[in-house]
């Protein structure tokens, strides 16, 4: 057993290496503001249709409403998820997951690992799944989900999604009292030095500066752009604009500018775009003859 990793970047390296060895495409973060790794097209779109797909990547995830001016030791307006998709979900995926923790140097023989029911639902994506929050010594470290539906469509084969909360795991392994104290580099630059200014300034923007009318205009514009792309049959740009709508909505929400009824309405509009993109994506892959079906995605040993 290797030494337990206790820094942020060791975790990223360790997980990347482990999942690359399992045959995952080592992807990069999506270059847009998203709320979770699930929204990356390599998860949301690739989990649709019959083609196999294995991918791993880090995704910075923005939750404007969770921003706390860099003062709360646990809550962040932006955090980092390590996201893995295995499609179809291998039969021994729990075992693989356990191995991934051991690859980080976590000696499970001295820890308590439990899987507690936690089902996942993303109304804006028309998606839901069944699974657990994985608890290590009473701390939630991973969301483990078998996707059942995405874009309002039943999925087959079923993908499994593993979402590691990188800050939480690092904090926990180093028993840090604050996320800002964890080492980003082992024994070197810490998380606060890398991210604190970001948290502070974006909190100010989300809660004080964001222009509500501007964001609402943006939302409308992004929506039109997405619909236009869908009509023209270009799915990926259409989906990108749906994501932009979603982020505009999140900022509006954090600004307290969304009433209860408006909220339902806006979520429905994003959902309609996502469902449209999902259907169009499956169609476009079908036209290509589902190329990955033949080639087969690399599988773990």
């Amino acid at each position, binding site marked *: 057993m290797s030494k337990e990793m206790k820094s942020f970047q060791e975790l990223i390296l360790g997980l990347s290496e482990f999942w690359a060895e399992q045959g995952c495409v080592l992807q990069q973060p999506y270059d847009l503001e998203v709320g979770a790794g699930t929204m990356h097209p390599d998860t949301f779109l690739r989990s649709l249709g019959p083609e196999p797909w294995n991918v791993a990547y880090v995704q910075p995830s923005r939750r404007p409403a969770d921003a706390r001016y860099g003062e709360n*030791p*646990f809550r962040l307006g932006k955090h980092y998820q390590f996201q893995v998709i295995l499609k*179809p*979900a291998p*039969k021994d995926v*729990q*075992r693989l997951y*356990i191995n991934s923790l051991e690859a980080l140097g976590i*000696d*499970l*023989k*001295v*820890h*308590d*690992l*439990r*899987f*507690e*029911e936690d*089902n996942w639902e993303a109304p804006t994506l028309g998606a839901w*799944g*069944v699974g*657990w929050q994985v608890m*290590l*010594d*009473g*701390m939630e470290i991973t969301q483990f989900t*078998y996707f*059942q539906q995405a874009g309002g469509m039943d*999925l*087959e*084969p*079923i993908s499994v999604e593993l979402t590691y909360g990188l800050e939480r795991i690092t904090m*926990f392994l180093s*028993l840090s*009292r604050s996320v800002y104290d964890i080492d980003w580099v082992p024994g070197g630059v810490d998380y606060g030095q890398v991210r604190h200014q970001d948290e502070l300034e974006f909190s100010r923007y989300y809660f004080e500066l964001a222009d509500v009318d501007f964001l609402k205009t943006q939302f409308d514009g992004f929506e039109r752009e997405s619909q236009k792309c869908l009509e023209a049959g270009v799915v990926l740009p259409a989906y990108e604009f749906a994501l932009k709508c979603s982020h505009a909505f999140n900022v509006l929400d954090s600004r307290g500018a969304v009433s*209860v*009824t408006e909220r339902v309405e806006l979520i429905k509009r994003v959902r309609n775009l996502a469902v449209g993109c999902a259907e169009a994506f499956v169609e476009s892959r079908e036209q290509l003859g589902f190329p990955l079906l033949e080639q087969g995605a690399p599988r773990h040993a």
Partner: protein
Amino acid sequence: MPDGELLLEVRCEEIPARMLEPAIRQLASRLFEDLLACKLSPAEVQTGFTPRRLMVLLKGLPEREPDRSETKMGPPVAAAFDKAGEPTAAASGFAKKCGLEVEDLERVETEKGEYVAAEHKIEGRPTIEVLSQIVPRILGDLDWAKTMRWGSGDGPWVRPVHSLVALFGGEVVPCELFGVAAGNTTSGHPVLSPQEFEVKSGADYRRKMARRGIEVRFEARKKKLLEKMSEAADGLGGELVKDAALLDKLASICGIPGVIVGRFDATFLTLPREVLITSLRDHQSAFTLESDGKLLSCFLTVMDRPDDPAGRVQAGNEWVVEARLADAKFFYEEDKKSSLADRRVGLDQLIFHARLGSYADKTARITELSEVLCQALGWDKEQEPVIQAAKLLKLDLTTEMVKEFTSLQGVMGGIYAREEGLTEPVWQAIYDQYLPASTDDPIPRSPEGQLTAIADRVDTLVGIFGLGLIPTGSRDPFGLRRAAQAVVRILLEGKLPIDLDLVAAQAVLLYGDRLKKSGEEILTSLRPFFHDRVRYLLGLEGYDYDSIEAALAVGSSNLPDLRLRVDALHRARQESDFLAVVLAAKRIANIIKEAPEQTFREDLLKEEAEKKLYQASHQLRTEIEGAEAAGDYELGFRKIAEFADVLDEFFVKVLVMDENRDLRFNRIALLQSIHRTISRAARLTEIVVDKAELRGRNTEMQVD
């Protein structure tokens, strides 16, 4: 493996804790029932589960189904044999179909004449064959609150299946579940003992699981866990704060019942007791400890392993608990920065229901409705704390603590009110407002709390009914049945003589023009809704449904009084002469049912029997009124029972439907008056008369 023993174990990924117990109960009972249907009854049934397995052990099953025989009917004898007594083609055809010779056929006498028949022996199947059919079907068809698919579309089931042990008398029962073939191997804990191993029998299974520290039997695991926890609590000089549901949960989420003792900083003990208990329970599934009613700065929870060799499990749990308590302390201190009354502005922003307005609107209505309730009880100065509590009732919804722990709503407001120095009736009313939330809960402890709790719920019921959103079937998203049941319980147990109809009518008015339905429509749908709760609650206490109906039929504006009447009726009807009362009441009701109201004139009384009846009925009314005034309904019913003889005599000797119109109408008027007298406490015609009981009664009376 002993003969006749079935060992069944499904091993899968972690089943949600809340689903385990119902699943194992269903699995065992369906297995038992299906085997019984094949005349295969086990002598003993044992069950067990951990998050990753369901186990059933049946002992003493027969080796095979009993043989049985069936008689197959053939053609009539007349058609099967010709005049010479030789078999016809019909006979030989039937014999051939049954695989027999004609000589083997039998003759059977039936209503339609004599028939040819064949005795058909059906050999019982071996039990293992029966099992191979029913086991996969029962397992696959278990009801789950939520199911999933996995892989390339396997399922639906609660979680992916990994292995299936199905052994009968040591032999593998050939079957499969979602592509997983039954076998004789399983494995232990996924980290500590993941290697597969073979099992030979129930005893072998238990031994090998025990060697890996796993206790599969739920009750045994729970007992062990409680022992370990109590022992740990002793060592810390305290005892567990009782929580049966939490203990069940902890026993469900582990296979190896290991206990972790954790400590937290004693400064957190300044938090209210309720907050500490709730935070530890909801976030960490942990027990708190107390000594002499004071909480200790430690907690106990479970780990799915026997020990904590590196202290990591304890350190990890303590780290999480400290973070959670720090959160709770932050919320508590933030909340205390403003008084409850200062929070009023926040209620405007909090939507109760899009059509029914904000919680500020609701608070205004509850306050007025509370005043109405006080007036109904004739309260004057006593109403002051009720009004104060009503105004503060919902303010804790804006606190950080309640946003974090919804289960502390009400309780938190009560605590903050107490800490602000508000009077006991006020803070207790706020604290208790959501009681009773379940059948086990008590009602609010003070009359002040009872009234505000009623006002709040009647307001909700009227509002939601007023939008036409009446619960149907199992759909009740606003929890209206529970709300109505709480109202009824509070009125009954608090002995509050409050007319729900009047309160609901006031509640309608307070909504102004927000509602879609008219007041009359709302009351018409709400009344039976409340009545259903009354029926249910009194039924739970063991009263017969017809006693409840009889009492309800004459009025429900005063529920404590209704309950007295039901109880009196319940006791009165145990008496042997009570049947006569019911029969007489039914007879009267039958005669007067079509008749318009008539005026009674004493001078028109002609027959001796009717004069006697009149005198007796006059006296009866005085007696019943007297008994009721003293709250003794049972005496009233007894007086009615005594009256039955005079009534019987009247019916025997006097013809009500006399040819003379005046006499006829006068007799009807007399009966109408008697009907009113005996129907004051209950409509006796609602009482169902048992036919057998009726036959047993030696009487010439006709019952219609």
